[in-house]
Each structure stands twice: as C-alpha cells, then as structure tokens.
C-alpha cells in the first residue's frame, strides 16, 4: 500500500515540505470580513464555475428558454435555491406580493380571492419533492448529443417546500360535484395554464410559498407556486394567480402543442403527467472527470421517481455486463431525489458507466433501446432512459450510446 499512497496522492511532498503547509497563508494570520459584511451570503469566489447554464442554440430567445442545474457539482439531495434550473415562457416575473392575488373560480360554491396574508393563515405542510421538466434529457432521444449531465439531466431540482394543501383552498371555495378538473394559471406574461384532474388536486398538491426554508425565488414563482408532486414540471404553475374548477380539461397549448408525446406512428400520447423512475451518474461525468488517476473513486449520482421512493440503484462500470448495487445515502422520501454512491478502486482502464433505478412500484429504469422501441425517436418528452458515460484512461468522460 505504501507505493500506492505515493501514486494516488495529489501532491507528493518534497523534502522541504509542501509550501501550502510550510508557508503561512494570509487567512492563517490576518482577519477576514466580519458578521456585518454579508447579510445574505453567497458562495466562495472559488466556486464561481458552479452555476446554472443555458444552451444558446436551443431557443430563439433566452426569455422563453431554459437553463440547467449543475448536477455534476452538487451532492446530497437538496438543490440550493440559487442553482435550481429555470424554465419560463416570458422571463422572470418580478411580482410584488402585496399586489398578488389568488382567485378560485368556476365550479365552486363560492368564488374566492386570497391575498398572500390569507394564504399564510391556512395550515401548512412541509415536503421535499423533485421537480423535473418533462423535456429533461429530451435532446438525447435521437442520440448522444450534449456532453455533460448538467445539460442532459439538469432540468431537475429537489427542494423542501412549505405550503398549504391545495385541498384546503378548494374546500374553502367548495368544489361542486360536477368539478372534475382544475386549471391553475400563472400571473406572468405567458399566462401559463395546465389542466389537472381533481383527484390529484385533492391528493398531494401544495400551494407553496417557501422553498428550502425561505421565500420562493422569483425564478421559481415568487410569491406562490403550485407543487404537483411527481408530475412534470410544467404543471407546477409559478406566480399562481388563479385556479378554475371545471368539468372537462382545457387542452391548452402546453398540453397539446407541447408536452404531448409524439410516437413513431404519428399518434401522440396526451396527459402524460407522471415522471417515471430515472437516474444519472453525476460524477464522474463529462464535466466532472477523474482528475486523480487510478485508485479509490467515488461514483455518485441521483435517482428519482414520480411514483414513489427509490429503494435501489444498480451501477455498472463495464457497460452493463456486470452490475453492482449502489449504496443509498440520505433520507429516502416519497417523490424526492435520492443520492447513491458506489465506492470502487479504479484500475485506470476505460469504463462504461451506467446507473439503473428501481422504484418502490417495482418499475426498473429502461435502456434507451427499450424506450425507443416503444416510443420511437420523436417523443421529445419523458426520456427516462439509462445514460452512459464512457470514461477513458485519462479519466475523461463522454456522453455515448452503446450496443
């Protein structure tokens, strides 16, 4: 092991010793900023590369576009608010909470208007849920394309929400027996709308005003958004200003032109709400290569399912010839991200890395091959297939497809 130590150490010491130890650093001797300097703190200057990033060629304009969570730089299961990916259709609405209202109308006994203060007087709940855009990994249907899990899988975040069960607000207005659907609507300039069946609305949806403890961020719908656990992100209406109750769905633009799944035969699935079990290795990955050479290596990633928890993730380093069960770490919560690890000793040879999630319903994440067999290559949304990274001898990783 003694020679191994020398090999794997990032910086071997010479006889005079490591200057980082022998020489005093500024921060060992001199005072830093005080407790009055940073009323709201930000990451270290040495972490400025950890940021949301957009892909300019994807859309005509950054104002109706998406950026991506830097999954390859994160660990655990919580996404910090500043790094939660953004997807908006008319830019970030900067809503003044004093001027914000939530209306409930349609098939209710009494149409109501709530202020933010009114909402804060209902009983609240706290839950950690992932939000994944249905288009996450959508650019990969036709083939391996974007080289980094931030881009292939970064339309997801995982947050603890505080909010009022939607059920309580609907009960307050009194849903008529004919009320079978709701249509939440946003206050931004896209006036975002979706149709949601009343069963889901009365089950686990939240009208949330806090994320990870503090107020929602403007990018995420401040002052109030809908939380639709396990269902595609577009339904989680941001800047929520109205909920209409109706007897039929609305078939609005985001559930017809968009967010319908075009199959190979030209037919299309609609109302594909649930997000199936999925996982991805976040490190090593194209943006997080192995820099330290052979020896101990932490393979890690995230897994989630819109239909429950993730009791198990399998990892292969040889492209699927052999699989090992990964170690799950951190709380296992319903419809939340899960973190997995596989601690290996890397021999320095090329690897083909994949992860495969099992959810609590018994569903197993499919291969791209399996999914394309059912859906073809034009489906855009709901690509939850197994991702492959090819790692070379230098530790560099690439997004590939394999046989």
């Amino acid at each position: 092991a003694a020679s191994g130590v020398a090999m794997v150490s990032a910086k071997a010491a010479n006889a005079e010793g490591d200057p980082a130890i022998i020489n005093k650093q500024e921060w060992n001797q001199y005072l830093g900023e005080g407790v009055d300097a940073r009323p709201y703190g930000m990451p270290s200057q040495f972490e400025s590369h950890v940021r949301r990033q957009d892909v300019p060629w994807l859309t005509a304009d950054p104002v109706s576009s998406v950026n991506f969570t830097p999954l390859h730089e994160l660990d655990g299961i919580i996404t910090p608010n500043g790094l939660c990916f953004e997807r908006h259709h008319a830019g970030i609405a900067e809503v003044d909470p004093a001027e914000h209202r939530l209306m409930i109308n349609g098939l209710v006994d009494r149409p109501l208007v709530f202020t933010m203060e009114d909402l804060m007087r209902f009983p609240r709940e706290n839950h950690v849920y992932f939000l994944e855009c249905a288009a996450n990994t959508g650019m990969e249907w036709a083939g391996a394309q974007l080289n980094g899990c931030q881009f292939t899988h970064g339309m997801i975040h995982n947050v603890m929400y505080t909010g009022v069960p939607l059920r309580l607000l609907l009960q307050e207005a009194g849903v008529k027996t004919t009320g079978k659907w709701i249509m939440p609507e946003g206050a931004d300039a896209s006036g975002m709308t979706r149709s949601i069946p009343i069963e889901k609305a009365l089950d686990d949806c939240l009208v949330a005003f806090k994320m990870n403890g503090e107020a929602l961020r403007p990018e995420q719908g401040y002052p109030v958004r809908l939380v639709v656990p396990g269902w595609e992100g577009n339904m989680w209406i941001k800047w929520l200003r109205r909920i209409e109750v109706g007897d039929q769905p609305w078939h609005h633009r985001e559930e017809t032109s968009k967010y319908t799944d075009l199959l190979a035969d030209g037919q299309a699935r609609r109302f594909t709400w649930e997000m199936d079990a999925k996982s991805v290795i976040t490190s090593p990955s194209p943006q997080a290569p192995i820099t330290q050479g052979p020896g101990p290596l932490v393979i890690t990633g995230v897994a989630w399912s819109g239909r429950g928890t993730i009791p198990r993730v399998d990892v292969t380093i040889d492209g699927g010839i052999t699989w090992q069960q990964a170690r799950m770490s951190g709380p296992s919560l319903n419809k939340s991200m899960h973190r997995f690890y596989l601690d290996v000793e890397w021999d320095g040879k090329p690897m083909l890395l994949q992860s495969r999630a099992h959810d609590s319903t018994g569903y197993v994440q499919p291969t791209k091959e399996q999914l394309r067999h059912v859906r073809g290559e034009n489906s855009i949304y709901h690509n939850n297939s197994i991702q492959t990274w090819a790692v070379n001898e230098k530790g560099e990783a690439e997004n590939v497809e394999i046989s």
Partner: protein
Amino acid sequence: VSGAPAPQTAGFGLGRDALPVEIAAWDIDVRPDGAGLPAGSGDVWTGEEVFVEKCAMCHGDFGEAVGRWPVLAGGHNTLSDEDPVKTIGSYWPYLSTVYDYINRAMPFGMAQSLTNDEVYAITAYLLYVNDLVDDDFELSNDNFLEVRLPNEPNFYMDDRATTEYPIFAGDVCMTDCKDSVTITMRATVLDVTPDDGSEGGEEAAEEEPAETEEASVE
C-alpha cells in the same frame, strides 16, 4: 386569553368572495367545447393585416417562422418523419387552443393586448395559412365549433401503465448480462455543448445539432 382548534370541515372563513367584475377580468380561458369564448368575429384578410403587423417579425408572414422562432403553419404529414414539423395545422388537436393561447400570451412581449375581434381574425388567418379554410373565411363565436383540426383523432390518453410498465419491471440481470459492448455514438462528434466559458454555442449552432426544435426544451 383563549383559542379553539381551527375548524377543519366548515372552512376557515379566509379569503373573500370574488366579485363578478374581478372574475370577468381574469377568466379568459377557452376550451374545445367553446366554453369561455367571447362574442366576436374576424376574417382572414383582417387577420393577415394584424398578423403581418404584430406577429410576422417572429413567425413570418405566412407562419413559416423567422430564424428559430416557432413555425405556425405547414408540416402536414410529417409526424412520423425523422424530423416532424408540429404546427397548428399538422399537430394541434383543437382550434380553441389557438384562440386561447394567442389571446393570453401573444404577441410575445405585449401579452393580452389584442381585442377579441383581432384574435378571431388572427385565428382565421392561421387556419388559412394552414390550408384549412378559404381566403373569404370569417371566424366567430357562432361558427367556432364547426372548425375541427385534422390531427384531433391522433391523440390518446397516456397508456404507459399498460404499454410500458409491464415491460419495464421484474427481475434484472446482474452478472454476465452481455457478451460484449461497443460504443455506437459519441456526443463529442457533434460538439454542440456550450463551453465552460459560458458564452459558447455559436460554433455549436453551425454544427447543426441533432435536435434543434424549439419544442425540445419545453
């Protein structure tokens, strides 16, 4: 000093009644069965005029799109092609969605600035450029339900529970699952990933990414 448990069944008495004038101000949604359609009308020629003035700089005079802004016309019979073109004419199932969306969200940057008659007229014009009505067509709340879009029958309810879940379940192979493995495709060949320098992508755009539809990020 007192306090009783909050009532859980009878409601909390929170919020206030929404006034009819308030509901009217916000309740603009339209459904396939015509629910929500306001009174009004507009013809193809008026629609063209408004569209050329307020929409064409992005969507093109005939809905063919400028640059990467959305295409609104054409694409018929492309849905099972390698690169389907999904437009109002080729893909959308219901006309009500056209009315509703333009009325709530367009023009981009000046939402909810159109009159009802303008929206009827633009909708008529978009039917026209999609070869679904003649140039003398006038659309109104009266004849709205008579217009059906051709792709309506091709949508069906999510059926993953029967078509996929039984396949994607069950025991998994853990050892000796394959004889060999080959790499069949590499992302770096395409080279469309933004640089770490953050401004990347220009070069990428030239490289013709495999999937450039605007829809791919919705």
